[in-house]
């Protein structure tokens, strides 16, 4: 039964954001039963049972507790088999308290953790058996599939139990109410058949466990896929941030002459040109391009894909501007091959916005 519940937990509780309200609902539903299983009102369960290290626990906990919904609530932490000493448990407690929440109780399968929790007056309880039959909202996406899976599991259990009951009743040859519990049945069974019965029960449970394992694996895979997707997104964001910082750290090529037609400059870093860049010339830079003069040629900043790269010039008259993979060309019509001279220059900056290059005039800034 433990495995079966952990399957459910993995699916609902591990996906922290979406399921907080759901799980707390379930708690309220089911807290009418036994006393030795604690329940929480106005709270939620955080399942960190797949963590193998204290750092994982802290990381997962803090990411959940950071959510606005998680503020000022009772928290139940499902720890799994991890062994923690009292200092580590108290640090978890402190973490929860800094987030304006409170630990209602923790759940663990490890004796060491249990002992150390009791040392610092943290309530230890079992929550696994508490969730009996979860109710599902059919309108929710994907829940139908899960329900089907659960039907198979729980339906399978009940039919298996039914079979066992039938067997038991045959052995006992006595009239037993079919609705009664297995435990009460076994009291009545005669001792001579006890071993047979227990072995057959074990067999039944064994197949159930296999079933659960199968779904457990599936859900673990799902969770893993979700985690990988999140990680990738994070990685992308970090990469972009890194690129922004990197541009600053890149070496800069400093050129103090006019670039004429046919001349081409490629740099591994930024380029600063004091002078004009005439039509027909080409500048390519991994970082930014700054022209202290009239930019009339082709400028390509961020050639290695940095969309944060910028092109600056005292006067922007470029035939083409390219930043990373974004491309812009001078509009047709004012296709005059010579540079338009003017007395005053308005510096301009070209940068990427979405999939377009936008040129800003630097006025009153």
């Amino acid at each position: 039964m433990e495995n079966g519940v952990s399957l459910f937990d993995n699916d609902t509780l591990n996906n922290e954001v979406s399921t907080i309200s759901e799980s707390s609902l379930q708690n309220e539903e089911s807290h009418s039963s036994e006393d030795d299983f604690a329940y929480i009102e106005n709270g939620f369960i955080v399942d960190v049972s797949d963590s193998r290290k204290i750092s994982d626990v802290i990381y997962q906990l803090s990411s959940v507790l950071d959510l606005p919904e998680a503020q000022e609530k009772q928290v139940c932490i499902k720890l799994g088999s991890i062994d923690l000493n009292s200092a580590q448990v108290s640090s978890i407690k402190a973490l929860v308290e800094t987030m304006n929440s409170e630990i209602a109780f923790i759940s663990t399968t490890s004796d060491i953790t249990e002992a150390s929790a009791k040392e610092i007056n943290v309530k230890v309880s079992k929550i696994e058996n508490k969730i009996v039959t979860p109710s599902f909202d059919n309108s929710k996406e994907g829940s139908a599939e899960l329900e089907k899976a659960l039907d198979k599991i729980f339906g399978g259990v009940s039919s298996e139990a039914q079979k066992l009951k039938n067997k038991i009743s045959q052995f006992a040859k006595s009239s037993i109410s079919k609705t009664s519990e297995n435990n009460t049945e076994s009291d009545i069974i005669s001792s001579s058949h006890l071993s047979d019965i227990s072995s057959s029960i074990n067999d039944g449970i064994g197949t159930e466990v296999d079933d659960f394992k199968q779904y457990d694996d599936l859900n673990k895979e799902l969770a893993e896929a979700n985690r990988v997707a999140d990680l990738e997104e994070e990685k992308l964001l970090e990469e972009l941030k890194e690129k922004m910082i990197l541009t600053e750290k890149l070496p800069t090529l400093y050129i103090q002459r006019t670039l004429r037609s046919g001349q081409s400059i490629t740099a591994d870093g930024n380029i600063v040109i004091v002078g004009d860049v005439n039509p027909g010339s080409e500048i390519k830079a991994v970082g930014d391009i700054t022209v202290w003069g009239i930019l009339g040629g082709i400028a390509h900043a961020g050639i290695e894909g940095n969309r944060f790269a910028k092109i600056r010039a005292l006067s922007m008259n470029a035939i083409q501007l390219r930043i990373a993979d974004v491309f812009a060309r001078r509009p047709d019509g004012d296709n005059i091959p010579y540079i338009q001279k003017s007395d005053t220059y308005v510096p301009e900056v070209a940068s990427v916005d979405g999939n377009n290059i936008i040129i800003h005039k630097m006025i009153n800034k």
Partner: protein
Amino acid sequence: MTGRVIVITSGKGGVGKTTTNANIGTALARAGKKVVMIDTDLGLRNLDLLLGLENRIVYTIVDVVEERCKLKQALVKDKKNPNLCLLAAAQTRDKSAVTQEQLKDICEQLKEDYDFILVDCPAGIEQGFQNAVAGASEAIVVTTPEMSAVRDADRIIGLLEAKEEIKSYRLLINRVRPNLVKTNDMMSVDDVVEILSAKLIGIIPEDTGIITSTNKGEPIVNDEKSLAGRAYKNVAQRILGEEVPYLDLEAETSMVTKVKKFFAGLIGKEKQ
């Protein structure tokens, strides 16, 4: 479809190869033919400017040769005429970036999809010229009625005749000034044809409109009123095999000068 590959060459610089290329190409495209122009003047490209396509060039012939892009990607479509394409030269490279075989190969590929492939040849008789001529089977030799240009054209014709691939060549005389010819200050068309003993394909008068059209990036054939534009249109028609009489430049220009003189006289009278 097997297209005709025509190289436009001159030997001497500044006689109007590129202008001729842009105008004949545009005229042929306007006549409904599929035309692609290849600029082989690597490092000194101008054809894109004359067509006003400079801002659209992303890939050049060097990118095609060095396999950074496909041939079709490098073809720049004209703004107005979808039949017209340009394969631009690289500005930042020199003539050695492309070999004769590579250009021949490009011409062969383009032949399948286009009626006309016009190759714009660089000035000189070195590698650039050899490259441009490599893929062509016809040639148009552009010259002006000046001794130096005629001399260079003679040299070029000699080189073209030595090439087996060039099946035929025609002469185009550019920048003819009928007034100067009349006063014996300029060689006449007949003189040039006699010296070069080549078949004529067109006579283009000197036209100030060429300067503005070059700066605008708009070939002069698009201007119906221009005399040079009409002359270029006639050249295109002759390339297509039509019999078109040569423009009577003397009559045309004298008419214009007559009108000008008339108005000048009127203004002069008013001033008096």
